[in-house]
């Protein structure tokens, strides 16, 4: 949803904003209508394969002819359509992976990143594990060595983008509206708007959620899952999909270990049960303790 006007007509409710830039929708539209009246409108984004409606409190209609378009494209990638007659009608065995569209877009992003020598990191975690603080600290400490770009994902608010903006790194906020995760298409659009430069480190802070983002490849080079010691050490067992698809596990807020019942070794053991290849960094983004190993890893990736 657009947080300026409350409408949700951008990309199925997804909005993209840079700090300090006013209200930039991807498909620009005007706001010369009164929002105190009820109106309904429908528009189809044929290219996006979706349609949506939204209702305000009184009634008028308008058409967004400017972005009503439709494209026919059939894609049965890697699928083998076979026809059979069947009591339910004619059967077509299409064997079509449901995440195909996202996976292909993710590969497109990945190819773009590789060509431009952009190293993309997808940061995932529960809400409140300290992803933004980790980013702030990392950028502040390494900005003379590494060129950072940041994509922030949240359902609402510019808060995180504003915090990153204060570090001086170029940042764009994706507000997913009702969405619970970032997907490859959002990254594709955000990267274009952010104008990510070559030889840079693109940090993508996903929506705080240990479930949904696991399924959506963004085209990242590495997926980094962050847990904090104020959470349960059995998080890896509870959310195995996320830990199985990550390369790095950061255990954050280690400065609080004396005050909580979090067994670091146990958490690591649980995580390794799900994914033998996980590499760990134990650190406190707040105090800076343990950050050196994380920085060394990042620098190595940028060589």
């Amino acid at each position, binding site marked *: 949803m657009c947080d300026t006007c409350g409408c949700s007509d951008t990309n199925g409710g997804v909005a993209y904003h840079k700090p300090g830039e006013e209200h930039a929708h991807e498909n620009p539209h005007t706001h010369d209508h009164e929002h105190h009246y009820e109106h309904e409108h429908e528009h189809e984004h044929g290219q996006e394969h979706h349609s949506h409606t939204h209702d305000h409190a009184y009634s008028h209609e308008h058409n967004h002819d400017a972005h009503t378009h439709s494209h026919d494209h*059939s894609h049965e990638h890697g699928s083998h359509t076979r026809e059979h007659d*069947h009591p339910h009608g004619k059967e*077509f065995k299409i064997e079509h992976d449901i995440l195909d569209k996202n996976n292909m877009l993710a590969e497109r992003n990945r190819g773009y990143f590789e060509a431009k020598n952009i190293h993309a990191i997808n940061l995932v975690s529960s809400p409140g594990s300290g992803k933004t603080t980790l980013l702030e600290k990392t950028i502040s400490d390494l900005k003379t060595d590494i060129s950072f770009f940041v994509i922030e994902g949240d359902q609402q608010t510019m808060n995180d983008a504003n915090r990153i903006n204060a570090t001086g790194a170029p940042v764009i906020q994706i507000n997913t509206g009702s969405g619970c*995760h970032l997907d490859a298409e959002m990254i594709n659009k955000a990267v274009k708007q952010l104008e990510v430069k070559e030889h840079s480190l693109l940090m993508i802070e996903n929506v705080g959620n240990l479930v949904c983002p696991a399924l959506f490849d963004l085209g990242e080079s590495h997926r980094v899952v962050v847990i904090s010691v104020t959470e349960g050490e059995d998080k890896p*067992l509870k959310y195995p999909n996320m830990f199985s698809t990550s390369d790095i596990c950061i255990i954050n807020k280690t400065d609080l270990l004396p005050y909580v019942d979090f067994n670091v070794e146990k958490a690591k053991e649980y995580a390794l049960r799900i994914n033998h290849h996980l590499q760990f960094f134990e650190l406190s983004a707040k105090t800076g303790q343990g950050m050196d190993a994380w920085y060394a890893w990042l620098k190595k990736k940028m060589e």
Partner: protein
Amino acid sequence: MHELSIATSIIEIAEDFARTHQAEKISRIEIEVGQLSGIVNESLVFALELAVKNTVLESAEVVITEIPGKSICRACKHEFDNPDWYTPCPECQSMNTEIIGGKELQIKSIFTG
């Protein structure tokens, strides 16, 4: 609730299919969901019920088959059911296992007419 995104993707694929095959309506769609795919079947059914309105799938029968999680032990090559990602090999207790089934998320078949 990523099941809504998945439901939307299923509808997109079905709509594409209907356009390409000039099918006015889809009578049945068969979907395979792996036990380790990260999708809750009940949520997917719920999301689909909401999302199919005014689409080619509106009156389609939706059949979801769950594919059990399966692993192979890298140490002793034993294949076994793994419903939760971290079941050790029942033969040799090794944790060095590899998932070979249960991550499916696929439309198997579409029926027209």
